């Protein structure tokens, strides 16, 4: 079912955490990896330095048949 859904609407290809401090990025990554392990899929989670004075998480999606490649951006507060 998950594979059909991924084929039709795309699936998560990568997660990037853009933070100012590496420590807070690490904490967030550990939480994310633990949650993803419970759900099943293996997704690479990376930490990058924040730009433009804003911290955010970006989730990259592969293209599906009905949905183009895209990324979701969530601002960290």
């Amino acid at each position, binding site marked *: 079912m998950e594979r059909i859904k991924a084929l039709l609407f795309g699936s998560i290809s990568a997660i990037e955490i853009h933070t100012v401090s590496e420590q807070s990025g690490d904490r967030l990554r550990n939480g994310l990896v633990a949650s993803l392990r419970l759900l099943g899929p293996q997704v690479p989670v990376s930490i990058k330095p924040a730009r*433009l004075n804003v911290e955010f998480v970006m989730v990259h999606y592969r293209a599906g048949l009905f949905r*183009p490649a895209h*990324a979701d951006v969530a601002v960290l507060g």
Partner: protein
Amino acid sequence: MSAAPLPHLGAEDFAMKQDARKNLPVVIDGTATVVAPLAAASSSEEFHQEPPIEIIIDSRQLKERIIDYLGAVLARCWIDRTLLDRIAINPHRALRQLGILLPDEIDIKVERTNTERPRLVIYEWNQERSYRRRICYLQLVMMAGK
């Protein structure tokens, strides 16, 4: 017939203008004030107002880098609400003000499915600028807690 000094010019300025009309070299003393043309002054001020270019997105490394930078721009829109409007009006100009120089072949459109989840859609023009290809889009989802 001798020309009368113009009211807005001093006697020295007037004499200099007279000499210039004769196509003779003009001696300018150190105290003379030189007024730059107004248009040149305003364009110079405008130039100095631009922040330095910190990021140049090259079209060869476009796919790898543009999403990273535009992700930061989109996240910044959450904090600076006017930024999204500025990108909608003139994306190249708005990003230039953030220190990001986009290549000409890249176009960015702002789409608002609703007011809470704006999207930045990235297009790439072909060489003749007759057709633009949609590369991908970035969507601002929400504010997440750390």
